[in-house]
């Protein structure tokens, strides 16, 4: 690609690339396009080998002139991957294996016949679905942050330019003043997608008001909330969109340097970002005098090193500065005194990904989507006990029922929905009674949870809520940075109390003590990690008081998860006296006489490993 030196040459490139992209998708000239998912989920299921196999066979058969093979970013419907999509027909094949490539080429690409056996089957209607947009999982979605993901090749700048990329940047640099950009973002009503939901325009305005030659934009890609993976997918699927958002932010408040901070756990995202930055620098979209407008901007990337607390903005800044990732007291806020003491805006990946869209369509159009207080769309990572695990982007104000049952396809194995956990270790649980609440920043807080980064883990009747709280506390104690004592010591004590409860040693006094300590930690902690650390406990205590009661008073775990509070039991009327359980038992605690006496578990010796239950051919063993 030639250097892009001014708005006209960018416009020419955009037109040229859009035409090429359009031709590819619409199959003009009779050429068909195969898209293979290259997201982390599909890569783990060998999608890379699928891509290579396609390339190999297409070459062998001399079809290069008729078929193009493309690798694209995440489709979002990760539980059904790897995906292969054929354009212009828009046929979507799911759970594709390397061995299926031959069939797709012979039947579909050559024979023009759809491979019925590779189509997605609707679990309810049992009907085969050919097109992606006809799948229930996609029907109610609206893709703004995920724009271009699963359509463009994330390694090619040309593809980004062909699919709306850098139109917003051009508009901003050539027709808008920095203040106009801030006003546009303010009017759009967009709030930070990282968790707290602070209005992005306001943040930019604070930084813009600071007089300083050096300012920084920092993109927070330290997606530590376990169960959330939207930032990863956006960076993997369309890194250009995020860089464009970052540049617009820089222009708006006067920053000429941008830093990406991405988790070390996301090697694919890091690699694609670095490539995007490199390619943009080569053509002059990054560097000095961008588009000949005098705007200079450089982008750097720093990798995290496995510390959850670095998702907190001031801890993140310390980490970029090569220090321990401990939070700083606020104020001063980063917008006043941030990276290396200079005014800095820390924006989440998803926030920056929405900026180009806002500029392209205008604030008024953007603000039509969403609720009164929360505009636009939000990406949720649906996970846990749900049929359609994956990334979904829906307008703010969508109900949990739509999210879990219409899009998510409900709970697997006919189990009952129990709770959905949002906001990760800082959030809380929502239950049956919250299903029809339109979800946005404010309603979630009112219901005792929070938006957080958008992780949404569904739990069914087999999950113990005390155990879930225990899990989060374990997480928090190991991720607390140790700087302030309410968080460092307090969360540890909370964890111990929960351990007592799950071991059957808790009392009603333990519950009272936990509540009191939780409020101390909330008030006394330095950063959001500590301030919200007790939320998973408080929320489960409020929503599931009976379950806590059962643990401390009846010494029972109703979901049969807490090992000390449950037993394996052989039903003598179902036992066929085959002795298999006794032979499998690693501690030899099951006795009986083969063919004569039903088997019995010696509870005093049982280590509750569950081997007997898993192996029983007659389903005679259960938990109680």
């Amino acid at each position, binding site marked *: 690609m030639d250097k892009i030196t001014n708005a006209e040459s960018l416009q020419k490139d955009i037109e040229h690339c859009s035409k090429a992209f359009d031709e590819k998708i619409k199959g003009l000239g009779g050429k068909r396009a195969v898209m293979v998912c290259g997201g982390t989920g599909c890569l783990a299921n060998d999608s890379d080998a699928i891509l290579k196999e396609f390339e190999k066979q297409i070459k062998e058969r001399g079809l290069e002139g008729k078929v193009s093979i493309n690798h694209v970013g995440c489709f979002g419907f990760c539980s059904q991957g790897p995906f292969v999509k054929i354009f212009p027909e828009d046929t979507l094949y799911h759970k594709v294996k390397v061995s299926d490539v031959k069939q797709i080429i012979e039947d579909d690409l050559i024979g023009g016949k759809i491979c019925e056996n590779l189509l997605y089957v609707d679990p309810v209607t049992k009907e085969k679905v050919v097109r992606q947009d006809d799948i229930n999982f996609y029907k109610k979605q609206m893709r703004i942050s995920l724009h271009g993901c699963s359509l463009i090749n994330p390694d090619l700048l040309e593809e980004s330019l062909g699919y709306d990329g850098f139109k917003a940047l051009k508009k901003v640099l050539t027709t808008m003043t920095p203040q106009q950009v801030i006003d546009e973002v303010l009017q759009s009503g967009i709030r930070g997608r990282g968790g707290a939901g602070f209005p992005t325009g306001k943040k930019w305005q604070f930084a813009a008001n600071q007089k300083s030659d050096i300012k920084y934009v920092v993109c927070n890609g330290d997606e530590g909330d376990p*169960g959330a993976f939207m930032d*990863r997918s956006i960076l993997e699927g369309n890194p250009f969109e995020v860089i464009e958002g970052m540049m617009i932010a820089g222009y708006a408040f006067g920053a000429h340097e941008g830093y990406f901070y991405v988790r070390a756990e996301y090697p694919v995202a890091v690699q694609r970002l670095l490539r995007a930055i490199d390619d943009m620098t080569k053509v002059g979209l990054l560097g000095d005098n961008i588009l000949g407008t005098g705007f200079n901007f450089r982008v750097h990337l720093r990798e995290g*090193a496995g*510390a959850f607390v670095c998702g907190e903005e001031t801890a993140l800044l310390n980490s970029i500065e090569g*220090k321990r990732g401990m939070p700083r007291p606020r104020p001063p806020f980063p917008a006043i005194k941030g990276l290396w003491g200079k005014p800095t805006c820390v924006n989440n990946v998803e926030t920056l990904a929405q900026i180009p869209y806002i500029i392209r369509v205008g604030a008024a159009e953007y603000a039509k989507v969403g609720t009164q207080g929360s505009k636009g769309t939000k990406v949720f990572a649906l996970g846990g006990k749900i049929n359609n695990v994956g990334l979904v982007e829906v307008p703010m104000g969508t109900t949990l029922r739509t999210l879990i049952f219409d899009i998510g396809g409900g709970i697997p194995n006919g189990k009952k929905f129990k709770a959905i956990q949002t906001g990760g270790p800082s959030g809380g649980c929502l239950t049956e009674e919250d299903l029809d609440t339109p979800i946005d920043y404010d309603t979630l807080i009112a219901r005792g949870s929070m938006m957080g980064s958008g992780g949404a883990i569904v739990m069914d009747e087999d999950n113990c809520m005390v155990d879930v709280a225990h*899990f989060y506390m374990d997480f928090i104690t190991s991720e607390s940075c140790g700087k302030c004592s309410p968080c460092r010591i307090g969360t540890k004590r909370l964890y111990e109390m929960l351990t007592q409860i799950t071991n059957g040693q808790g009392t009603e006094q333990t519950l009272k003590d936990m509540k009191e300590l939780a409020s101390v930690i909330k008030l006394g902690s330095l950063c959001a990690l500590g301030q919200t650390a007790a939320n998973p406990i408080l929320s489960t205590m409020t929503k599931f008081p009976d379950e806590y009661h059962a643990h401390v008073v009846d010494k029972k775990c109703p979901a049969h998860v807490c090992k000390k509070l449950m037993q394996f039991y052989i039903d003598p009327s179902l036992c066929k006296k085959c002795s298999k359980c006794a032979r499998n038992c690693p501690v030899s605690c099951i006795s009986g006489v083969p063919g004569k006496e039903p088997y019995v578990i010696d509870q005093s010796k049982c280590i509750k490993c569950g081997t007997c239950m898993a192996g029983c051919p007659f389903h005679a063993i259960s938990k109680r």
Partner: protein
Amino acid sequence: MVIRAEVRKDVIAICAMHKDEPSPLMIILSQIQKKYGYIPLEIQEVVSQETGIPVAEIFGVVTFYNFFSLTPKGKYVIGVCLGTACYVKASQPIIEKFQTILGIKAGETTADGLFTIEAIRCMGACALAPAVSINGKVYPQMTVDKVAPLIEEYRHMEVKA
């Protein structure tokens, strides 16, 4: 421990490579960790000499982040995801199985230097829950029964090599 001359030279080269970056410590440490698998005190001393950052500060950084290690990791690092999505789909019994078979706890390395078990907090592969990664390769939908064959597969690879 005495560090070999070529390692010292390499570490010095890594430091020099990033000398123009503002606050390059994290980048330098990441690179050393990725290349050598750990960052012992002796290496930290070299980094200190090259960057002028006190060893105490470097040690503070190395011990803060999970990704950095003071001791060598095994040839194969087994990461068992204990993120929420994996946890609610029973990843705890899977890590326990790895621990039983290899006879080590999470964070430890087998005596033969082959395996390290690590508890990972979400690798973002939630659709594949419960997920396990070995040296970055992700194994989706793990079960307790798949643990022993997986370890065998790697041991077998070792024998062949």
